[in-house]
């Protein structure tokens, strides 16, 4: 999960803000889980429904492959590998902070103020808002597809590749989390623009399901250098699958995911702070 950055000018002087954020996040999450569990039947139904429904996503790809052998030069197991990694990472981020898009609503109806009155970081509270375990459905489905892909796909399992896979999932989740935080922060200025965030999160997850060769080169450049979604799964996956990347970047870039994710988190953290500061000076 994302932690509110430490130190800096506007100084929230709570000692150990990262640990404090994690703690507050867990406290709020627990309350939401208990709330959902007070409607147990409803929870079971929607959790299952969520799992089944996200499977339709992958079914679309399977249907495409009922007409063709390969898409953009990738076989079904290879596309499934992309799908599984993208979906798992996105699912994790969605599970952890999927309610960031409600921030605009909270600003509008004034309930953000009640969060700011508590002695714990606001970001942690907003991220944990409406925590829904049913979102685990997407993660499970992503992992299942990934498992199937790993069984069918032809990867040369060197030590490096074995290590790269879990790192990729975590890095991907971190990049999506950063997008969620940045999107949330953006709503301090444009509360109604929550949709833009969807184009990067849901849109990004859809994009990354397909081989990069399918897309126009400028689009691929955009998601490599501007919003670095390519680091979620494309670059490491291409390496694992032994395929060249369409931009012809140097090989070490495939391993740059972790630092890129860190930079993303730091930038989104700064944006968040700027958002909070703006809220506190405008109150709207």
């Amino acid at each position, binding site marked *: 999960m994302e932690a509110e950055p430490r130190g800096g000018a506007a100084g929230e002087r709570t000692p150990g803000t990262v640990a404090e954020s994690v703690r507050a996040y867990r406290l709020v999450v627990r309350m939401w889980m208990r709330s959902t569990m007070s409607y147990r039947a409803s929870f079971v139904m929607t959790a299952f429904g969520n799992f089944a429904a996200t499977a339709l996503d992958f079914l679309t790809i399977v249907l495409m492959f009922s007409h063709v052998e390969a898409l953009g030069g990738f076989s079904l197991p290879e596309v499934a590998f992309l799908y599984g990694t993208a979906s798992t990472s996105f699912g994790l981020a969605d599970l952890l902070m999927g309610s960031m898009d409600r921030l605009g609503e909270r600003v509008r109806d004034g309930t953000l103020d009640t969060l700011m009155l508590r002695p714990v970081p606001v970001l942690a509270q907003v991220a944990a808002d409406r925590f829904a375990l049913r979102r685990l459905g997407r993660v499970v489905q992503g992992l299942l597809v990934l498992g199937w892909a790993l069984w069918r796909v032809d990867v040369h399992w060197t030590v490096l590749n074995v290590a790269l896979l879990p790192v990729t999932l975590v890095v991907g989740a971190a990049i999506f989390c950063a997008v969620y935080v940045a999107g949330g922060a953006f709503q301090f200025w444009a509360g109604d623009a929550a949709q833009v965030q969807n184009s990067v999160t849901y849109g990004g997850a859809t994009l990354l399901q397909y081989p990069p060769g399918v897309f126009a080169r400028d689009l691929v450049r955009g998601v490599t250098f501007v919003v670095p979604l390519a680091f979620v799964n494309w670059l490491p996956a291409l390496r694992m699958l032994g395929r060249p990347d369409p931009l012809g970047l140097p090989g070490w870039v495939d391993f740059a995911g972790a630092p890129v994710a860190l930079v993303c988190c730091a930038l989104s953290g700064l944006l968040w702070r700027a958002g909070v500061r703006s809220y*506190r000076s405008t109150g709207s």
Partner: protein
Amino acid sequence: MTVTDSAEPMIAVDGVEKVFDVRRKVAGTLRRERHQVRAVDGISFTVPRGEMVGYIGPNGAGKSTTIKMLTGILSPSGGRLRVAGIDPSRDRTRLARRIGVVFGQRTTLWWDLPLRDSYELVRRMYRIEDPRYARNLDACVELLDLGPLLDVPVRQLSLGQRMRGDIAAALLHDPEVLYLDEPTIGLDVISKAKVRDFLRTVNAERGTTVLLTTHDLTDIETLCSRVMVIDHGRLMYDGGLDGLHAVGESERTLVVDFAHELPPVEVPGARWVRSEGPRQWLAFPAGDSAAPLVTALAARHPLVDLSVREPAIEDVIARMYGAA
């Protein structure tokens, strides 16, 4: 913990301003014009430890903006603020441990969970030690009659019960200052009385400093010895309730029952308002004594009965706003 010198006021507000940039659509065009709104326009006051102050004014006068600055949610555009020795906008989270806030129309309780669970969250968030938590919870439960409600999901509570629950939630961590925004809004008479009794007790026994915003002037009359009136972002009045009447040029009403029907009487220092059979209503400045008036009347006509009616504070404030 900051050690606050007990001589230092609990709340110190010095020339505080809050200016908002507002974009407004220019009528008939697509252009938007920027202009500044001074929501709080240079306010100064202090509240000593343990005082209970009413903070009143019409909607949009700047009350909630002030409260938001005092809690650190909003940063002031100018001036200096201290609450319990802390600068709210710099140290919001540290201040949060030392203040309690109740927004009358916005519950902080968890809708689907029993009341008790919300209190557990407060305990963990504020890191309240077990004995202190148990003591405070017990006290609140007893004084606010929360016992039978602790295991009821909040969504099943009535408005009055929920408000009592919210007030308790704001006091579990022993705040030194309590901000109450419309704590009795929408409550029935019995709930109102319960809330008021409780606040009086808390103030008296724990010495909690209370700043109270309300539209119900009975709240102020029964709880606060001091009242501040704000309008258009400025402090219009700061003092006792009686003084408010003088400033507001309010009038008391003398209701006189004469022995028989009379034409409107004329006495110096009073104004005839209306007649109804032998009864007449005469208005006179609230600051004056009724005695000379009664003497003058009795000298001219036989009187059967007399009563003096106090002015409603709503009218007093309305007059003040009218004058401003």
